[in-house]
């Protein structure tokens, strides 16, 4: 029953995402100074926004876990953070590609979004090793929730602090508020596509993990054997 609606969701995601990229490629006007390179913006920034929101949502789900102590909330929090982490890799790589194309270097300390994101990414990178280092399942889930909440609160603060640094020569390249209409529209469509993608991946992961859990418990009941519980960072229901 967790797989319900997944097909419709996937179709919607494909339609919106592919449509968004098509709009970005063909409808959005060329940027005056950056030319075609600017189109990375439609991929990189929505990806970043969705990943960051995903991290914060992970924190919110963790609050639910601490309130109800039901393992399903821990699973939801874990999956949200995990997917954001994967998207985060994409953000850093596309960010580096964009930096290389615009300024000729693979990394820019002047780009506050990229820098903040790196810090956030490094923090969440410790989430899985931390979970892995705690053997007791219940304690692992509890500590992970504390972490997720703290880290979720950290995201906006980090962005604020990095942004407050005086900018050097390079102008604010991403996130300039004054985008012309067609660009804004394109951006919003791409953002919607990314958000849908996140949600679809999220639902897939949850369904897969729950199915796996039920398989395991079925197996245990039929075979009367408990497969050796390998220490793992992922919650099992």
């Amino acid at each position, binding site marked *: 029953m967790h797989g319900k609606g997944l097909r419709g969701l996937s179709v919607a995601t494909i339609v919106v995402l592919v449509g968004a*990229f098509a709009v970005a*490629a*063909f*409808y*959005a*006007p*060329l940027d005056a100074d*950056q*030319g*075609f*390179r*600017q*189109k*990375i913006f439609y*991929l*990189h920034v929505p*990806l970043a926004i969705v990943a960051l929101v995903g991290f914060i949502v992970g924190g919110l789900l963790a609050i639910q876990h601490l309130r109800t102590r039901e393992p399903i909330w821990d699973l939801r929090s874990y999956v949200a953070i995990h997917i954001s982490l*994967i*998207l985060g*890799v*994409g953000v850093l*790589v*596309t960010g580096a*590609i*964009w930096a*290389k*194309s615009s300024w000729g270097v693979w990394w820019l300390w002047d780009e506050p979004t990229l820098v903040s994101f790196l810090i956030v990414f490094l923090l969440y990178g410790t989430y899985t090793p931390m979970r892995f280092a705690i053997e007791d399942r219940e304690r692992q889930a509890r500590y992970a929730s504390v972490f997720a909440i703290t880290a979720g609160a950290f995201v906006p603060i980090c962005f604020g602090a990095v942004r407050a640094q005086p900018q050097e020569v390079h102008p604010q390249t991403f996130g300039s508020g004054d985008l012309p209409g067609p660009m804004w529209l394109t951006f919003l469509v791409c953002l919607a596509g990314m958000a849908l*993608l996140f949600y679809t*991946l999220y639902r*897939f992961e949850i369904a*897969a993990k729950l*199915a*796996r859990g039920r*398989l395991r*418990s*079925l*197996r*245990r*009941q*039929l*075979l*009367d054997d408990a497969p050796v519980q390998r220490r793992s960072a992922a919650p099992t229901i």
Partner: protein
Amino acid sequence: MFADTLPGDQGTPYVVAAYLVFLALLLIYLAIMGVRVARMERDLAELDDLVREGRDTPPSSEQEPERIST
């Protein structure tokens, strides 16, 4: 309208590379999902056989109390 948005300057390979990275990440994820689904199907088939065996021959552990699954 289309003419002025199609690739023309040297920024193109970077843009393409970025979108390809994104695509690659997605496909890797799908591949991992595929492996997972295959493994689950294998487990299910195994359990299926077990149940079928249990039906053909009277299982000796039929009276086993149901285990609590964690």
